[in-house]
């Protein structure tokens, strides 16, 4: 079996890890975009997610991984089975983290006519694509800025609506496709259109650590993984277990976390001060702060959580000012310092 580098073994990169955990607790924050230099562990972190996520109940035999709970979303196939009197059985399955390979064609992403069945039996059947496989999980697109625009548009549309609408090759159907879109890319190789960027809930920037000890530790762990993957996985199993427990607890807690009016007002002030366009930034900011509070075991959201997620939730929504070359992260920091006082 292939071993995957454990999430807890990733050195540093706190902001990226936090954003991914927030998305795991509340998929509603709407996707994570990771910008950063090469070799900073972007892909490693996302590919480590499956091991962290607790298994979920899935309808047996459903090709879209439908949720068997009473109020869960059903695909048309599950609805048909239910209305014909069948009792849907469920089993536990791993949360899908689907890696969209570069060079994937649209038919495999969206799904297409099942050629085998069409030819052998003359049936018009749908062969689900990667969007179906990613339902209720994560869809990861490395180098999203290099992906063809029409595919990026499509992914963002589906991610926002939670439904894949297929109209091709004489097929006409729709199926649930709720997933957290995680993109990564290196802005030096081409920027993402601002209107696409805005549709990612959180955006994080990762940089190569400059601290020598930290770098040595990264190389040491990577080396250890290359030589004895099972050993390293075992070493961090306990840490990963703890993260998993935190996610499970936070998911239970997140809907009941209290959001005081004072915090709401602060968030609005912050968005006004930064001049972010639209309400999306503010909503994401609050959702992310709430998820973070849940992760940390708090019952109430405080300024501390808002502050911690502000840069991730807002930096990609700032208007560009050609005459001010301050980075958007620095602008966020400045506004935060003005509003909340200097960073502790």
């Amino acid at each position, binding site marked *: 079996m292939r071993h995957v580098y454990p999430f807890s073994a990733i050195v540093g990169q706190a902001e990226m890890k936090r954003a991914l955990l927030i998305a795991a607790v509340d998929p509603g924050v709407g996707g994570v975009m990771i910008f950063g*230099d*090469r*070799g*900073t562990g972007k*892909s490693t972190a996302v590919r480590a997610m499956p091991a962290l996520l607790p298994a979920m109940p899935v309808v047996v035999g459903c090709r879209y991984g439908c949720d068997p709970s009473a109020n869960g979303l059903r695909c048309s196939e599950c609805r048909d089975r239910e209305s014909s009197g069948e009792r849907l059985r469920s089993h536990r399955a791993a949360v899908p983290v689907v*890696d*969209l*390979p*570069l*060079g*994937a*064609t*649209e*038919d*495999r*992403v969206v799904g*297409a006519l099942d*050629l*085998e069945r*069409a*030819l*052998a039996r*003359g049936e018009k059947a749908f*062969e689900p*694509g*990667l969007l179906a496989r990613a339902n209720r999980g994560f869809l990861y697109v*490395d*180098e999203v800025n*290099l992906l063809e625009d029409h595919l990026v548009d499509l992914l963002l549309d589906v991610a926002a609506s939670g439904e894949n609408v297929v109209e091709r*090759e*004489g097929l006409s159907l729709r199926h649930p496709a709720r997933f957290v879109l995680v993109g990564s890319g*290196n802005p*030096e*190789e*081409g*920027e993402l259109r601002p209107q696409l960027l805005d549709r990612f809930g959180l955006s994080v920037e990762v940089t*190569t*650590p*400059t601290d*020598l*000890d930290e*770098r*040595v530790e*990264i*190389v*040491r762990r*990577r*080396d250890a993984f290359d*030589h004895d993957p099972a050993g390293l996985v075992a070493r961090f199993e306990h840490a990963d277990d703890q993260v998993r427990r935190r996610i499970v607890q936070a998911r239970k807690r997140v809907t009941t976390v209290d959001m005081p009016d004072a915090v709401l007002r602060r968030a609005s002030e912050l968005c006004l001060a930064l001049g972010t366009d639209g309400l999306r930034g503010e909503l994401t900011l609050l959702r992310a702060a709430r998820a973070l509070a849940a992760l940390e075991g708090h019952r109430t959201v405080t300024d501390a959580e808002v502050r911690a997620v502000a840069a991730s939730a807002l930096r990609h929504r700032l208007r*560009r000012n*050609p*005459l001010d*070359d301050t*980075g958007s992260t620095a602008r966020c920091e400045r506004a935060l310092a003005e509003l909340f006082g200097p960073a502790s």
Partner: protein
Amino acid sequence: MTPVVAPRRTVAELAGAAAAALAVDPRGAGGVRLHGPAGPPRDAWLSALHAMLPPVTPFLRLPASVTLDRLLGGLDLTATLASGRPNFERGLLSRADGGIVCVLMAERLSTALAGPIAACIDTGMAEVERDGFTDRSPAGFGLILLDEGEPDEAPPPSALLERVGLHLDLATLAGAVDFSTASAAEVLAARGRLAAVEVRDADRNAMVATAAQLGVASIRAPLAALRVARCFAALDSRTQLNGEDLALAAALVILPRATRWPEPEPESGEEAPPPEPQPGPDDDVSPGELGDRVVESVRAIVPPGLLELAKDAALRSRVEHRHRSGAEVKSQRHGRPSGNKAGDPRRARVDLLATLRAAAPWQRVRKGGGPGARLVIRRDDLRVRRLVSKVGTTVIFVVDASGSSALQRLGEAKGAVETLLAESYVRRDRVALISFRGTRAEVVVPPTRSLTRARRLLASVVGGGGTPLAAAIEVARELAVTVRRGGGTPLMVFLTDARANVRRDGSGGRPDAEREAGEAARTVAVEQLGAILIDTSPRPSPFARQLTALMNGTYQPLPVADASRVASVVRQAVEG
């Protein structure tokens, strides 16, 4: 580990060592970037590598123009037609498992192809989701990037440069050099010993510190260097790394990526330093000190010429243009093919092969078994080519920084560059800036789309001195030609009063300077490059008008130029 006492290596010996490391552990080393023209040295290196590899090793040559479906695989047309059911054919990358993939003219490889290759290097698997197929197959290989790029051209895709550990420059060699350092049998034996080679904490610390001292940010570099060092130990039948392994690996992996150069050492440090006996184990020594020793050892073993080269590159890397050339737009009629899509053949070119592919699986059904029937193609099967062409006009500002009014003009030019850059974010244009004064013209801002970078470079431009117009036109023309070669459309914008008074050789004299400027202007017309001359003299100057005519350009007198008017003139030229 003390600084090593080791013979100084020649470029050929270093290249030979790189070939041996690649032969022992192609995946671990990642691969090699082989810079330099096609010729005997490069052929000799490749055949030396060939001779070191076990005989059955796959060795795949990939032209930079390879298509995505050949690379990754897709519907197999012949088999599908023959069997009447969809058949998948694996791509080239899957055939290279355990071997070498060699990309010809890697500087021409598009990022769309680089992505999937990089993913293979990372995971050792080719993962394909194409044409209705899902396929995973092992595809672990070492990558050779044959880079024939000129220094001013865009380098191979950075996603790949980052992942190939070894960087070699053979440009300084001539003739058929002997690169062989190990036999195939020795390589095979070393492969068997590789797993037993131990990397100690001190080795790791030393390599990480070396990378830090030479300003190499990516963590992949020290990782690759350690793997390369292990190959050397395995070849030498050792289970521990020694200083020479580390120094060689650093010279091949870290040194070529250097962006910084530590303080020069006293001359005595250059020659083989006396070996100081180390009393305790290396664990007592700080990583920084270990790094110093490796850097020192690297100094001791690489030829001085190479050292200078790396130093230059490190200094230049701050100015080097790392951006790939212009964005690509989809176009219906022209450009290079980039896949296909279902579409109407009346509005775009038909992709015959793709159309056949789409129709192939259906043939048995459509023909209803009738023998001798021809292909049945329906409208749904029609596929048209998706074409992309590079656009992104690159606006090259050529700014007269001479004389007293320079400051004013420079201010305007800077303002115009910034305004256009802000717009270019939407339009995907690039901007460059050449300034000329005194005796020469220089490229201050290489073509860029990055506002931050341009602003930083702009700030360093100062004014004053004579007007070397001929030199300016020449530098601009060269840059414009380079831009065009990269697929972009250059547009030169001169902001000058055209009072040429410095000749190309730096000497003064108005008549000669004007004659030379005229000659240079004519070459612009010959190359058919777009040019605008914005005359900034108080009264329109006849010579400026004449010069513009020679360039076959657009003349625009603008005695009181301001940034927004300059920008709007350029905008019209770009959009009109």
